[in-house]
């Protein structure tokens, strides 16, 4: 066990994956000499050379499309999309090729791509640098989607994603890149639990909070605050957004009977909608109150100075907790 930042854990995970399998290679913008704008690939060019750490031309569709070709040839490309908001030019290659080639080729062609996306807001960034596009990928059959919230998961899940024979879209919350945590970077993948089991980040009895990524930290803060008010929140870090580990989720919901989902992404047809729909289908008779979503508004990501009114913070989570507990101090509410 070592204490390290998530950025370091990811860097370390990449290095391990590249040492373990020489078909693994990295592609992206500025990932070579610069080590990526977040330094996640720092030092890897020196260790593995330009044939395996590839600074590409500035074209995301080109990156994704050539990664598909490399996968055809038996490579395992790990693609870095520089920021969440720049994944869209690659959307066609992801949706029509990466996600479908295994199905379309009747399993003959594997697409073991990992698409790393520095992700989401809260860092005061410029436009297009704080997006939460995860729902697009969750809705895309053929992909797996992972979102991490701490250095240990970052390290292990990234290695698992790279080792996975299916394409994985891997979300790294930018605002946690410098958060530190204990990491065992040497876990044997053969012994590790399968990628994508949800984690009970904090046990509780009154309300289940379903969340992922940086919101896990906010939810844990809310749980601490709630404790002071005598409310016990169970916080579940989903880790895998597709598939979702419903065994862990439903066990919690059946215990608490009350659910709050929180994410930064817009609400409409977001991951929260899926979670509520699925939980309602699976746990209807256990639910004591309507599940509530605490999400980004259904607006384009606002300017940096306003982002704190967009991102669901501790207070908004607590307000939702009040609501599912039917406490009178809930300020929000749903109209007809």
């Amino acid at each position, binding site marked *: 066990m070592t204490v390290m930042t998530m950025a370091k854990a990811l860097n370390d995970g990449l290095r391990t994956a590249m040492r373990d399998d020489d078909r693994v290679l990295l592609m992206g913008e500025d990932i070579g000499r610069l080590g990526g704008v977040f330094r996640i690939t720092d030092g890897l060019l020196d260790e593995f050379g330009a044939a395996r750490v590839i600074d590409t031309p500035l074209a995301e569709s080109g990156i994704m499309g050539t990664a598909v070709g490399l996968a055809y040839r038996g490579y395992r490309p790990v693609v870095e999309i520089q920021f969440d908001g720049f994944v869209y*030019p690659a959307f*066609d290659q992801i949706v029509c090729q990466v996600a479908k080639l295994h199905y379309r080729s009747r399993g003959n062609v594997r697409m073991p791509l990992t698409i790393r996306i520095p992700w989401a807001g809260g860092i005061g960034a410029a436009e297009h640098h704080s997006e939460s596009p995860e729902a697009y990928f969750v809705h895309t059959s053929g992909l797996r989607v992972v979102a991490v919230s701490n250095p240990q998961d970052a390290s292990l899940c990234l290695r698992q994603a790279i080792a996975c024979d299916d394409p994985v879209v891997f979300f790294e919350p930018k605002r946690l890149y410098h958060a530190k945590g204990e990491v065992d970077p040497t876990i044997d993948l053969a012994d590790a639990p399968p990628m994508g089991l949800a984690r009970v980040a904090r046990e509780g009895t009154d309300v289940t909070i379903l969340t992922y990524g940086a919101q896990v930290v906010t939810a844990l803060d809310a749980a601490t605050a709630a404790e002071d008010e005598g409310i016990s929140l169970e916080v579940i870090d989903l880790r895998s957004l597709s598939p979702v580990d419903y065994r862990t989720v439903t066990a919690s919901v059946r215990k608490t009977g009350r659910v709050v989902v929180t994410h930064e992404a817009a609400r409409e047809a977001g991951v929260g909608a899926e979670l509520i729909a699925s939980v309602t289908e699976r746990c209807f008779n256990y639910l004591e109150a309507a599940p509530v979503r605490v999400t980004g508004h259904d607006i384009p990501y606002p300017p940096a100075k306003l982002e704190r009114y967009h991102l669901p913070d501790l207070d908004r989570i607590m307000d939702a907790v009040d609501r599912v507990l039917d406490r009178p101090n809930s300020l929000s509410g749903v109209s007809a």
Partner: protein
Amino acid sequence: MVHTLNPGVSLRTDVDDVARLLTAEGERIPDPDLDPWVEDIGPSILRSLYRDMVLVRRIDTEGVALQRQGQLGLWAPCLGQEAVQVGTARALRRDDFAFPSYRESGVTFVRGAKPADLVLTWRGEEHSTFDPSEINTAVPQIIIGAQTLHAVGYAMGIQRDGADQVAATYFGDGASSQGDVNEAMIFASSFGAPVVFVCSNNQYAISEPVTVQAKFPIAGRAPGFGIPSMRVDGNDVLASLAAMRWALEHARRGDGPAFIEAVTYRMGPHTTSDDPTRYRDADEVALWRERDPIARVEAYLRGRGEFDDEFAQQVAADADALGADVRSACLTATSREPIGVFDGVYAGPHSGLDEQRAQFAAYLEGFAGEVGR
């Protein structure tokens, strides 16, 4: 001086402004750039190229017929484009890797696709049938231009493996407008990847004449990206073969990508769903009928006494046999079981989909037991 107003580039889009070795009348004309690449091509190879083209045409006729008879959902005819498909594909080495589009049945056939592979996708049984690694040919692509990037990536893999193979990608004149195709040229150039771009300019993207995509020859774009290119008569199988050999050799020896624009004509409709009379004149089609890729090879060989009726009959018989095989592969096809829609989505277990599959299996089973509702 540094302007690149570039008087050097031919700005004509004239379809006769191409490199050619066999005229429409079957006359062998010299071309200083192409001649060196076909020195070894004698009558017997020409006859086999003729044979391949006839077979491809027969496959195409069968495809159209099967579609008309309701046996295929759709067919994209390659009638008139046999020369570029056969000529370039025959130039490939077995271990090179081809990335074709939906219209390249001639390419997939030459690469080794079996009769079933040529029709079951169009029948709607499977998105694709053959294993790409067996015939070193990718799943034919429908998303216009997407495969060009795959070819470049594959070629980057070849480089990393230190191999001397080449990736070849096929696409149309319409495709040349897609961002992906341009990005493919840029990546190929930047990485010096061993990839050959073959643009089959058949004058149309569905109803749009090539002039919607380009006011000047498409081959003229490649040099701007640092990729040498050639514009050839795509109805001339010998020129197509020669140009492809030039391009492959260029890529194989480590000089990076090369580009071929093969000027040809889509004699049929875009697909069997299309009605080309809405957007082009019979005159134009008639003009191109004169430029038939197969007839000119026959004329040339006959002129040299290297082609007789017996050979023609033999090829026709082979074609009929192949046609029959294609037909029977189509008619004897069986569909997957309903639950088979779930097959092959993921390479490994997936809790969400596995559950959905199990539920659907239970539903189907229960439903099978029911007599009506």
